[in-house]
């Protein structure tokens, strides 16, 4: 019997050990700890995955930044990989997390970082790095003039907080602008207010659909006119809901978008999609192309797309013979309450990925911090209607001089681009961002899809009614996996527990069985000894 007990005990030990291993799963990297010193005798190759707006000047600025940085830190080589699409960066990062081949530094959005963080210590938490006196923001051992924490625009750095911690730094910021063919609006007899309401934009858009007897549009004399085109329909829905103080999601990842206000917005959009006075980028193409051809009156696009807007734009995708002469003006996006305007804050951020060698992570941090220096910030922001993310750059004389030189005829100081940048500079306190959680990127996609769907349906002569809306909500929730009450996971909130895997259940059953056998054996021994004593 003693032999059986020994075997049972051994079995229990093995089972317990195995089950403990199973609980841990694949071991992740240890959390990054700032090294005492940065070893400048050791060579570091770091990868930087960057995004540009199909703008070669931006590529040149990245290259110059890398070159300037490497001159200061000859032991660090930065290898850049360029993308023109955030979605592709996101996809590639996700793919590389599983093989531990993530880049060192990556341009990205906080929504995406929330998903990257599903791996243990995958993305480096920056709280300690920000305040480290040696290597932190403007630390004593930094070889360049970096901004301090307080010199980063507070709204922009706050956007990089996921839960209670910072996981990114802002790189550039933009908002959306309403680019207007002022000539046409005034020709139609309207006076443009400083801030337009949605009602005003819808009204003018419908009026612009009037046609001549020959079928051409009265406002432009052409066969084509889409008065109102929105580039990013996810932003459109998000901004409208925010302005109406309606539900979208909360910081815990609870999905609130499927509500009556959303339906009201969609019914309004559908009315104008049905008349042809409203369309989207996905359905019709770039708003700027239509605007510049005199085929659009209200084009909403990022301020980071300002160099494509207007008769004298730096860039045109349409042939120059199709560009018409008109006065372009830049306004905030339409509002429901002009006394309380709200506009989205967007733009690239940067994060660093954890590695086994803390020195490599520190090298990544040094490069990422370098991207916040004045030269990089000013030169990159001036390529488009971006604004620098540091007060240090925004307030320097060189940048103020740049803003003062706005002109329609000077490509470097294109007035529409500078007006777009000033729109954000003057309204930073009116910007907002949406809550970030694992799944927030899907929710954003779903928000846009709702508008795309009703717009397509109206163009296809489908009936958009209450039943349509119920089905749309149901289908969209299923498509984007928004059915769960909460999608959070990275903010320290509890996730709903899913069913245990079969192997885990088997282990637990085995353990319980073993303990029952042990108990039975002990009880048997106890009873036997009592009998013997009798």
């Amino acid at each position, binding site marked *: 019997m003693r032999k059986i007990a020994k075997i049972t005990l051994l079995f229990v030990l093995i089972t317990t050990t195995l089950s403990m291993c199973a609980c841990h799963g694949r071991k992740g990297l240890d959390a990054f700890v700032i090294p005492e010193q940065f070893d400048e005798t050791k060579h570091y190759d770091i990868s930087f995955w960057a995004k540009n707006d199909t703008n070669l000047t931006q*590529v040149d600025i990245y290259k110059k930044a890398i070159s300037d940085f490497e001159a200061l830190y000859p032991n660090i080589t930065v290898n850049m990989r*360029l993308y023109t699409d955030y979605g592709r960066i996101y*996809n590639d990062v996700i793919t590389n997390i599983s093989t531990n081949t993530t880049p060192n530094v990556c341009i990205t959005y906080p929504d995406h970082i929330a998903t990257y963080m599903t791996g243990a210590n995958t993305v480096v938490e920056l709280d300690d790095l920000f305040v480290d006196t040696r290597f932190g923001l403007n630390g004593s051992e930094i070889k360049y003039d970096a901004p301090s924490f307080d010199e980063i625009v507070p709204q922009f750095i706050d956007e990089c907080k996921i839960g209670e911690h910072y996981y990114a730094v802002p790189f550039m910021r933009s908002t959306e602008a309403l680019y207007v063919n002022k000539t046409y609006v005034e020709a139609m007899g309207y006076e443009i207010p400083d801030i337009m309401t949605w009602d005003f934009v819808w009204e003018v858009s419908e009026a612009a659909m009037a046609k001549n007897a020959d079928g051409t549009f009265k406002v432009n004399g052409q066969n084509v006119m889409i008065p109102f085109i929105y580039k990013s329909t996810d932003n459109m829905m998000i901004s409208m809901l925010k302005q109406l103080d309606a539900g979208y999601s909360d910081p815990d990842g609870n999905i609130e978008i499927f509500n009556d206000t959303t339906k009201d917005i969609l019914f309004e959009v559908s009315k104008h999609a049905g008349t042809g006075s409203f369309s989207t980028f996905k359905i019709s193409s770039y708003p700027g192309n239509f605007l510049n051809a005199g085929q659009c009156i209200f084009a909403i696009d990022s301020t980071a797309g300002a160099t494509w807007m207007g008769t004298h734009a730096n860039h045109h*995708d349409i042939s120059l013979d199709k560009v018409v002469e008109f006065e372009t003006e830049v306004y905030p996006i339409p509002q429901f309450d002009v006394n309380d305007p709200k506009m989205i804050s967007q733009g690239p951020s940067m994060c660093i990925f954890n590695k086994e060698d803390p020195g490599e992570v520190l090298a990544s941090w040094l490069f990422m911090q370098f991207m916040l220096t004045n030269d990089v910030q000013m030169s990159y922001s001036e390529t488009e209607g971006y604004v620098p993310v540091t007060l240090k750059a925004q307030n320097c004389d060189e940048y103020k001089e740049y803003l003062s030189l706005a002109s329609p005829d000077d490509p470097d100081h294109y007035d529409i681009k500078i007006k777009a940048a000033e729109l954000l500079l003057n309204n930073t306190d009116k910007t907002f961002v949406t809550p970030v959680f694992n799944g927030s990127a899907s929710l954003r996609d779903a928000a846009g899809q709702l508008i795309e769907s009703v717009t397509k349906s109206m*163009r*296809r002569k489908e009936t958009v009614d209450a039943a349509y809306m119920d089905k749309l909500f149901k289908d969209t929730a299923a498509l984007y996996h928004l059915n769960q009450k909460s999608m959070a996971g990275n903010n320290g909130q509890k996730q709903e527990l899913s069913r245990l895997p079969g192997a885990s259940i088997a282990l637990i059953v085995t353990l319980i069985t073993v303990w029952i056998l042990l108990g039975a054996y002990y009880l048997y021994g106890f009873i036997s000894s009592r009998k013997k004593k009798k």
Partner: protein
Amino acid sequence: MKKVLALVCALSLVFSLAACGGSADKKSAGVMTYAEYDAAALDSEVVVEAYVQAHQSWWDNKITVYAADKDGGYFFYNMNCSEADAAKLTPGTKIKVTGYKSEWAGEVEVAEGATFEIEDGNYIAPAKDVTASLGKDELKNYQNQLVSFKDMTVSAVSYKNGEPGDDIYVNFTKDGQEYAFCLEYYLNGSDADFYNLVGSLTEGQVCDVEGYLYWYEGPNPHITKVTVK
């Protein structure tokens, strides 16, 4: 007897060849001919049968397909497609596609979200020489077809990103007019030899060029073959 047999054989051959040539156009019940598709209004539902000629790389359960039948070309943008089905879309494969006709920046296509089923049949469309149609409205009649242009002179080559790894924009001139072409990275960027060939083209070189006649605010062929003369 031998003469009769020979005649029968010859006639059989002629009929079978004729049948082969015509099979590309034969449509199933409820399926539009190319002419009907061409005449269909934008934003209307279309059901077409066509043969895959090439496709862009599958991604996120979507695939973009260049297709043709004997009468014309089709562009199926971001069709719903599993990765397993994408592997079946080899050149020549016949598919029945249901979706909505739309136009994006001048490109007439079946819009994102179309569905398809694979059918029996195989056809590869030959390239049509449309050099004489360059700069004319009639060029649009060949939209989405595999077309060729002879004796085009390279005037500019640039990478979308400023360096290899993305689309390559190639401008060619012909008879004093400049035309924009594109090596679409997701179509043939993975063919390193071809990508390097196009990337290394230099101003003044004369080439014959083949590609699918895509449209972006004007003709913008997606290059598939370049022969430097």
